[in-house]
């Protein structure tokens, strides 16, 4: 059994099985964020509902953290193994079909780790701007709407977010279809649809996340 788990194919499964829930979370989080366009009440109510989950919210957070750490550590191991598999590189290397996003997964992944740490300290722990902790709406709920307006009105902060979410989209651009290939769910009938939908999902993630800070920065949302 140990040789099964440590095999190159099983490592692909683990990358896919840890990545798919993270992608579902990314998509769910994006839909949650987009509620800002429904007004302050909608997004504050959504945030209060999430906070009301209590222990279940922590169970989700811990699960996501374990998946994220496993995904990150395994990808680092795979990166080193892959570098060792070709000790002498080509004098004139060439790329035929590999996309830019597929070739930069380790770079986008590392930047996403840094971005995620910043994001958690910014909006979850709220230690970068502690005034976020004292924002409440008329119903006494945490005023997430005002927090987002305050946060994204700062062009430096918004720039960091734009970089982070575009790279997140780039990561998903390769990851979505790749995960299905790794799990053996690709075949000649569905390949063309999956290879179209996967990268499209990456674009949707980048645009879906970027639209909120951009709308705040350009005062479309006030």
């Amino acid at each position, binding site marked *: 059994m140990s*040789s*099964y788990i440590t*095999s*190159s*194919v*099983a*490592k*692909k*499964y683990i990358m896919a099985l840890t990545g798919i829930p993270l992608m579902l979370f990314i998509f769910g989080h994006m839909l949650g964020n987009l509620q800002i366009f429904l007004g302050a009440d909608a997004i504050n109510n959504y945030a209060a509902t999430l906070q009301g989950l209590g222990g279940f919210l922590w169970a989700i957070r811990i699960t996501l953290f374990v998946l994220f750490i496993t995904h990150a550590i395994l990808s680092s191991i*795979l990166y080193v*193994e*892959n570098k*060792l*598999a*070709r*000790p*002498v*590189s*080509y*004098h*004139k*290397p*060439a*790329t*035929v*079909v*590999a*996309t830019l996003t*597929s*070739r930069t*997964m380790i770079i986008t992944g590392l930047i996403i780790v840094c971005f995620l740490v910043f994001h958690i300290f910014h909006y979850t722990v709220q230690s970068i701007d502690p005034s976020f902790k004292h924002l409440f709406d008329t119903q006494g709920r945490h005023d997430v709407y005002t927090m987002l307006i305050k946060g994204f009105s700062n062009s430096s902060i918004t720039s960091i977010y734009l970089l982070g979410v575009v790279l997140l989209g780039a990561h998903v651009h*390769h990851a979505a*279809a*790749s995960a299905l*290939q*790794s*799990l*053996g*769910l*690709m*075949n*000649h009938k569905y*390949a063309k649809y999956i290879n179209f939908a996967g990268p499209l999902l990456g674009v949707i993630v980048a645009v879906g996340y970027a639209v909120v800070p951009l709308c705040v920065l350009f005062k479309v949302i006030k």
Partner: protein
Amino acid sequence: MGRGSFIVDRIEIHDTLFTIHYPQIMNLTLYIWRQRNAKDKGKMVTYMADDISPDMSFLEMLDVVNERLIEDNEDPIAFDHDCREGICGTCSLIINGRAHGPEKGTTTCQLHMRHFKDGDEIYIEPFRSRAFAVIRDLVVDRSAFDRIMQTGGFITINTGSPADANALPIPKEDAEYAMDAAQCIGCGACVAQCKNASAMLFVAAKVSQFAHLPQGQPERMKRVRAMVKAMDDEGFGNCTNQYECEAACPKEISVNFIAKMNREFLVSGLK
């Protein structure tokens, strides 16, 4: 006759128009990896390949270069070749960063010089992988593939008289699917082109070929486990689904076979 193989000139003599065909030649600059043996450090060496016909194959061009090197009392460039018909999988070479050169679905031996231009600079390197050690110049040791095949790339049968034709009916779709996988000639281009030097496409083709035939069923699960283990033990890299292998494969083996192997391996773990 290749397009642009001849320079056409017309001259008029005593009111008669004559058409003269001059064979067009190419002058190329080659940067070739030279390495005396496995222990030698090796380096890129520049050669001028003048008066090359566009109708030569790439290997014939190297033959001409070698003849000139021998005339000059220099060591000829070692490179692998055998059938020169694109079916044996012996020829290799990374040509300007691409396994078997720039033409899709073409082995180096079937690549013709008409796909290059006069004055081109061509980098020629051996297939690079930890599992493919350089033996000399452009020749690499691809016996890692043989060792993988020895662990499961066969069907165990009792030897004796061949079975009657059509004694074992196989649906046409299955036969064609298995044939698509069986087209793999084991040249190693997939490994050479892959950014991670992964052998997944090769192993996937061999696993899929037998997994779709009734003869392959008894050893199906054992085969995929053994061949994947052998592949990992040889030190090939991991697949990151970039599909450079499929693009470089001279037999255009589909990466869908890798998904097939992933399914086979998953099922083998559940049994």
